[in-house]
């Protein structure tokens, strides 16, 4: 009986972490009606020291414009490999972008910060348009942007 219990305990121990390691998180971004063309938006995460950890999403598919997302560009050198598989279309003025990602639980309440850089054709670049700590308490709270983004909510 003891080997059976040990095996069952091992099964449980190996299975539970897989269920608890990540959670689906939806980032909802509402753009202002700024009267310009579609916005390029870079979503990325820094750690407690401010060091770049990785990118979560890129709205806008042409790399030649990424230099206008200047903070993201400075952190990554514009490396497309950072955003392979997480790149979509740019977002029009007044539109909502809803991104659903399976994010590591360890990102929350651990000093990580979600940043959004924004850029629009013929308009001023807006690096670090939003910087919001990733915390459990922040879930569902709308955060205003500085120029092009009306609000960002993660839940």
């Amino acid at each position, binding site marked *: 009986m003891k080997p059976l219990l040990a095996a069952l305990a091992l099964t449980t121990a190996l299975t539970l972490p897989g269920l608890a390691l990540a959670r689906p998180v939806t980032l909802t971004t509402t753009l202002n009606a700024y009267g310009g063309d579609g916005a390029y938006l870079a979503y990325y995460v820094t750690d407690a020291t401010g060091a770049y950890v990785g990118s979560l999403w890129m709205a806008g598919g042409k790399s030649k414009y990424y230099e206008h997302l200047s903070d993201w560009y400075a952190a990554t050198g514009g*490396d497309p490999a950072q955003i392979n598989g997480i790149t979509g279309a740019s977002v029009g003025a007044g539109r909502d972008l809803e991104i659903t990602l399976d994010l590591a639980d360890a990102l929350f309440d651990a000093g990580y910060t979600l940043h959004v850089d924004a850029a629009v*054709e013929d308009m001023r670049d807006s690096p670090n348009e939003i910087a919001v700590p990733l915390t459990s308490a922040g879930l569902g709270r709308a955060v205003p942007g500085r120029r092009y983004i009306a609000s960002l909510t993660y839940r």
Partner: protein
Amino acid sequence: MKQPFPLILAATALAALLGLPALAAIDLGLGRHGAGPLAGGVAAGDADLIRVGSDHDDDEDDDDHDRRGHRRGHNDHDDDDDDDDDDCAGAAGRRGNPAPAGSVAPPANGLFGNGAPPRAVTN
């Protein structure tokens, strides 16, 4: 209980079946750029399952960006509406555009779990 070994074998097989994917999601930080708390867990074979809700560009005229690029030191180019990414491309452009969501797995940057692939919808 006279023959516990089949039960042990079954439990061990179950552990391997359910536990190994969880272990695979744990980032060991071996040589990954910007490795975080988790490894990017979507296998390349799962890439076909990734869907993006809005596959059109809300910009509706991406070529408009070309004009900005021309103003910034590339005035010798024409202002036609071609879609050639090589025109006026800087260093990033020469490296090519990133793979769109749905075509490859997300980067292994430690931020993503191995659950549902990224999705985006524009309203």
